[in-house]
């Protein structure tokens, strides 16, 4: 009778341990799944941040081109060579300038279809010294090199 009770006790202890191990394995699996899901989310957010940075840098570059008078030149080669000078190595960019009283000027650099591309537009005054000669809208597209 005493042996049977001892056997019952050992059997219950074994079952409890199996249940514990089962629960632990379940928890570990759940934690792993959640961690991977979280990692995926974090990476997705982190991937979106460079687009904001790209937008800022490309906007600044267009402003620089206006500020130093390059956009007022109306010459594709001048704009392109200045753009290459100031463009950071990690970024590629193209511009289209639509003047109110001159033909559209396009740098014609192909925009990649499978990359993250940001775009924006700025409004500029074309001047010759202190004289305002035209108005234009600059559309720009930028993507990582």
């Amino acid at each position: 009778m005493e042996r049977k009770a001892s056997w019952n006790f050992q059997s219950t202890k074994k079952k409890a341990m199996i249940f514990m191990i089962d629960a632990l394995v379940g928890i570990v699996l759940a934690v792993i799944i959640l961690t991977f899901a979280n990692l995926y989310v974090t990476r997705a957010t982190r991937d979106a941040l460079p687009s904001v940075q790209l937008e800022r840098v490309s906007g600044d570059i267009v402003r620089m081109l206006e500020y130093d008078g390059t956009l007022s030149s109306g010459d594709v080669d001048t704009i392109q060579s200045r753009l290459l000078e100031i463009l950071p190595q990690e970024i590629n960019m193209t511009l289209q300038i639509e003047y109110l009283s001159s033909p559209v000027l396009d740098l014609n650099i192909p925009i990649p279809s499978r990359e993250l591309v940001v775009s924006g537009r700025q409004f500029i005054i074309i001047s010759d010294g202190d004289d305002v000669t035209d108005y234009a809208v600059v559309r720009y597209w930028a993507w990582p090199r």
Partner: protein
Amino acid sequence: MAKVKALMYTISTALILSSILSFAFLIYDSAQSSSHVVLDMSIIDKMDDMSSSLLFGMNKLVDFKSGIKFITEPQRISFIEEVNNTRASGFNDSMTEFKRLVEVYGNEDFIEPVINVTIDGFMENMSFLVSPYDILYTHQRYGGSHLVVQPSLNNFNAITINMNTPDNISECICPGGSFGNDINIKLIIDDSDNHDINDYVGGSCCPGAYTYDYGLYVIESTIGYGDEVTIQLWNGTASKQHLFDISVLSGKVDVQVQEGMPAIFNITYDLIVPITDPVTIESTESVYNITYSQFLASKGGKLKLIE
């Protein structure tokens, strides 16, 4: 006993599942808010980009075409303008053209317009506020005959009014005003054609000293703070045509020029304190509004000439 075990098993399974679900919900929620933050940042950047380019363009137009100049020096602020301002109509045309460009091309991808340029009120008065010195520079009608520079604080110790007037002035009268020691007015009448000083009215016209040097008459007057001085100038024709009035009251300089009689005014406030704080000169009225209603984001602003 078996029932209790089954019950315990069910409860623990339910607990584990509900915690997994809660975590999943939390992660989903955080992913959503993260993507919203990135989108919001992107929208704010786009607004900022367009707003900067708008303001930069408008600043350029004011600088090149308005015929108004603001100069800040270590202890003085000057405003220079021709009244009547003959450049007003050209400036207004340029601003209208720029507004058209911005509204046509800025809104081309949207059903509801996102950019609205509101320059009508601004072009009407061309009012600017100089901060932190609270000096208002305004016109009754920009391009018209009435210019007002009005400080709201007594933080200056002298006002200098320089005028380049049309020639043939033969009379200057100061019909009223009591004079103290607080505010100094210098009235410089340009006489580039070197008329004889006797063509002009004598020293009794405005109190103070006269000097005559290189074709300039300099009339210096000192008036008391809070007193009013009115100076009227007449030209030398037989009919003694009235050219303009200048009145100064509590630092407010009011210039009224007869239509068709332009003169260039340089009104300078000598400040009591050195300019150490950054000076801001901005329009009193908002000139643009950018609204992305689907993101509940909007940005409006005044034209900032000096910041």
